[in-house]
């Protein structure tokens, strides 16, 4: 079930949906428009959460919140197109992820209780969404079995929609290494699917 973002714009997947209007949306958000920032957030947050749930399953929401706090405070200084915006967002998320991991090593803490079922928003077609979620959750669970670099590369390429150069820049490696990691990850994924009989 697609999620409506704005009039005439439908988010069919987690990749870029703002499109040609991105410059205007970004300028409005930088000018203080909550509606524009809402568009940016709705565009990028699902991909961000999926990336974080695979890379750091238990602390994905915390890291995502810290990432958006950082983004909000640096939004006025950001310049670039939609791809650069996503690259900045995921770079920020990755840094917050490393900070969180460092902090958890020093100060292990108990997580707070999750949101109860009564507090969860309901949708018109909950069954379809549940099926979609199951497929997505299964895919994320499968992806989490890959080595760290391979799953991170695939997530950034597929979920975030970044090209090889940007992924290489985020991970601090070469484009060749990114391509090799992606291909190896896909082949490993294929072997996992064929060998274990995983169905989505």
């Amino acid at each position, binding site marked *: 079930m697609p*999620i*409506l*973002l*704005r*009039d005439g714009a439908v988010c069919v*997947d*987690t*990749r870029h949906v703002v499109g040609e209007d991105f410059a*205007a949306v970004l300028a*409005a*958000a*930088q*000018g*203080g*428009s*909550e*509606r*524009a*920032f*809402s*568009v940016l*957030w*709705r565009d990028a*947050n*699902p*991909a961000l*959460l*999926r990336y974080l749930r695979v890379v750091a399953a238990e602390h994905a*929401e915390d890291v995502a*919140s810290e990432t*958006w*706090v950082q983004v*909000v*405070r640096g939004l*006025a200084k950001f310049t670039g197109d939609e791809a650069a915006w996503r690259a900045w967002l995921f770079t920020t998320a990755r840094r917050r992820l490393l900070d969180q991991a460092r902090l958890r090593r020093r100060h292990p803490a108990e997580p707070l209780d999750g949101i109860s079922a009564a507090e*969860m*928003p*309901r*949708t*018109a077609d909950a069954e379809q*969404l549940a099926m*979609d979620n199951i*497929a*997505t959750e299964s*895919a*994320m669970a499968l*992806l989490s079995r890959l080595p760290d670099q391979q799953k991170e590369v*695939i997530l950034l*390429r*597929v*979920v975030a*929609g970044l090209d090889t150069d940007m992924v290489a820049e985020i991970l601090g490696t070469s484009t060749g290494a990114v391509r090799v990691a*992606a*291909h190896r990850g*896909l*082949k490993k*994924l*294929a072997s996992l*699917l064929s060998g274990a009989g995983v169905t*989505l």
Partner: protein
Amino acid sequence: MTRFGVPDDDMPDNLPPSGWGPAPSEERDLDAVLAGQMADIPIGLRPVADVLAALRASPAPAELWGEANVMAEFRAHGPGGVAGPMGPAPTRPLSALPDGPSPRRRRPTRRRGRRKTTRPLVNHWAGALTGIAAAAAIVIVVAFTGNLPANLERLAHLGPTAKPSAATASPQHSQGQKTETSSAAVQPTTAPPPTHSTGPAGSEASTICREYYSDYMHPQSLVTEKSLWQQLTTMAGSQSPRKVYEYCFPYLGGLFPQWTPKLIPYPAAPGNGTANQGNDQQGSQGSSGAQAATPAPQNTPGPENTAGPQNTPKAQDGLQDSQPASSNGLSH
């Protein structure tokens, strides 16, 4: 080493075996899977493509829950300013959220900021206009009456920057020989200085002086005070409160129980004793020149006046503008 002097395993001159890395065609297929192109994908990669499609599936509602928190952060710490042209508000597909603008959409922070910037400006301008109006009213009153209102005049006497109270006090009543000679040497008098008479005129001056300063210290009637002040200025030959006080100084003894009249000398600049006199000379000509050129009738030197002390040496006139209020001897 078998040939060319190079080991066989170093820099082979043949193509790598097919098992090394993905074949070029397979690499293209993998790139197509990564790019989400489902057409022309080998059957073996279909499950992988399905997994990647599930990864990029449409967002679940749970992935859009944190919007309120992020918006609150945006309101609190986001970039301020006026929102750009963005058209209608974003559609809210979740049934749990109310339709239309919610109370969260308010921007109290920005409104508060605007008030902070505008209110002080309004108050500032209102205060400035009030002050200007008051000053204009005072100027008009002074222009019509020729004198300050009594209350303002009293304030002028006591105020720290008031001109009349900035009179100089040099020891003219206890003047020594040195002072008299210096003042005499400095000024060629164009007008006779006001002197004290010891006759009926002196008793009249004493009465007026005591009445005026008594009324000054304990105000009762503005009309009386104004009348007395006009008489005193005529007798003293100057409208300067300092000169009037100096004129009345000999008669003020015992006027109030716990107050002794005194003249506080103006402190001379260190090492510049004659400079004061020069300034005095200029001040005498500048500040009271018109009044000094037309001596008052009461101050006409008579036989008894010549015997009296010269109470207002001209050398002291010029220092009146810079003397603190308390120096006129009427400090409370």
